[in-house]
């Protein structure tokens, strides 16, 4: 099967630090692929590179088999790639609807729209729906995001990415701040999105969670892909071994 999105030999340096050292990564259509690795392995950096939020120093990106350059996040968004960043990337002073439509504000029809007037009612309505679908309960939909709990904010970020993605959603530790109930909901969302044909890249440190929801697992260590697994025939021990390097040959890609 042709990969949907592929990173090849990606290198990203931050001064002295080399976050990615020739990393490869593959997403197939309609799958949940988990991206795992120890702290500092380069998972978030890889996500940013593939989402157009950071530019690689070397290496290439293929989308549906064709090389693409992702100069900025909008380039990735245009391809149907959305991201839940680890730091969430929300505007804390704006409300949920404004965050959901950040950068993609709806305008009124007609003259008002030509003058740049927002259609706040429509955005609010659609936001309420998008949140409801994920089971996000906001007591006050108009409250600035900064006043919400960490979990609620995370849900808003997830709702935003899921609402706009056509092809791939990257989720960088989307369950990290969540309670048991919310965590279950997010994993349900992940499955639902996959079942609707959109691929999900799930970054997580929680191995049982990874095994329960992912179809495949790719392991990053020190900025390189060191192994890929089919979730159905691997185990927590094997994953941990690949992450830490104890099991160096894994079932290498």
């Amino acid at each position: 099967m042709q990969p949907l999105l592929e990173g090849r030999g990606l290198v990203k340096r931050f001064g002295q630090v080399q976050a990615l050292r020739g990393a490869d990564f593959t997403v197939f259509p309609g799958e949940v692929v988990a991206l795992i690795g120890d702290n500092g392995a380069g998972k978030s950096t890889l996500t940013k590179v593939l989402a157009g939020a950071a530019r690689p120093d070397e290496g290439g990106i293929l989308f549906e088999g064709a090389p693409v350059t992702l100069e900025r996040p909008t380039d990735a968004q245009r391809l149907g790639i959305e991201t839940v960043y680890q730091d969430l990337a929300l505007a804390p002073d704006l409300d949920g609807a404004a965050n959901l439509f950040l950068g993609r504000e709806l305008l009124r029809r007609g003259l008002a729209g030509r003058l740049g007037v927002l259609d706040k009612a429509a955005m609010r309505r659609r936001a309420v729906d998008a949140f409801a679908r994920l089971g996000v309960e906001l007591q006050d939909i108009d409250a600035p995001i900064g006043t919400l709990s960490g979990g609620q904010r995370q849900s808003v970020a997830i709702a935003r990415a899921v609402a706009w993605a056509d092809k791939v959603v990257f989720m960088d530790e989307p369950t990290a701040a969540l309670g048991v109930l919310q965590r279950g909901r997010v994993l349900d969302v992940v499955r639902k999105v996959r079942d609707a044909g959109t691929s999900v890249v799930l970054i997580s440190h929680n191995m049982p969670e990874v095994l329960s929801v992912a179809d495949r697992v790719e392991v990053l260590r020190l900025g390189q892909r060191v192994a890929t697994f089919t979730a159905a025939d691997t185990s927590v021990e094997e994953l941990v071994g690949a992450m830490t390097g104890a099991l160096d040959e894994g079932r290498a890609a």
Partner: protein
Amino acid sequence: MSLGETTTDTGPGPGDDAAATTTSTAKSAGEAASSADVKDETVTAPDPRPDLSDTARRLARRLVRTNSAWTFLVLLVLMTAFSIMKPAHFPTTFNLRNVATDAAVLLIIGVGMTYVVITAGIDLSVGSVLVFSGVVAAKTMTGISDVDAGWGPILLGLLAGLAAGAAWGALNGFLVAKAKVPALIVTLGSLGMALGLAQVMTEGQDVRGVPTRLSDTIGNGRVLGVPWLVVIALLVTVLGALALATTRFGRRTYAIGSNAEAARRAGIPVELHLIKVYALCGLLAGLAGILSLARFTTTTIGGHTNDSLGAIAAVVLGGTSLFGGVGTIVGTLIGVFIPAILQNGFIILGVQPYWQSVAVGGVLIAAVYADQLRRRATQRA
């Protein structure tokens, strides 16, 4: 899944960037099962109007959240107090008209400053840019004509002044957004440069001989009893407030001030937007320069050293946060009038008007302290 909602125009607005315009692609019904549908452009039912009590409740909540509610109270208390103490002198048309006329120039600068401060920036240069623009306008008018100039030369002068202001603002914005020099330093630099260049152009002498047609109309004339200066300032305020509160340009101004990196990742052209915001601030400083010129018929080069700080104080008094992301033009309107009313009231009461500076300084610090407390209380992690 279709929400049965009305479509919305997502065409680019003027003053906004086509680059980031959404072209919403409707999903096919099959795919739609997932998720998405904030972008669905499926049609039909007209918007159900939200019911009134709900709207009212939301409005009330928003009012409580805004910092300008209590500053408005302060303004009301001041005005009531002065009216009671000096009923024959304070609450008169004559007096209030004077207060408003004096405040007009500061109000116009304050509107631009509000935008800048909401982006978490600052513009110390507006006072100097005001002077520079006034000089450019005056030089243009007196250069191609004289005191009896017709509307043609006057209009040219006005345009030159506005352009000069916008150019300084754009330069500030460019240095802040592209060169990443802190706004405080950039605008401190242009504060000196704009004033210095204005003095170089005039050899330090105020330009006189401004056309009487300008000073008799815009400068000192009235429409329906309201001075032109006040009319123009209110127009700028209303337009500025509407643009900030209801347009995409305004929304993105807040977003950038709230979290510039989030805005960037959401595809907002942050650098370009910042340049526009500083250019707007400069343009309004240019307009203020022209109004000041029209009023005093001379460039008043030395008379605006406190304007930048006055505008910043007004913006902050009005509840706009120096940390960005929060603020309103209505707040700034109130913030301009608190010092103005205080000063006027003190003069009428026979108190030394210098007390106004003392009082405003104290209130200013209190306002920022309140903002700090609010942020600590509401922002988690």
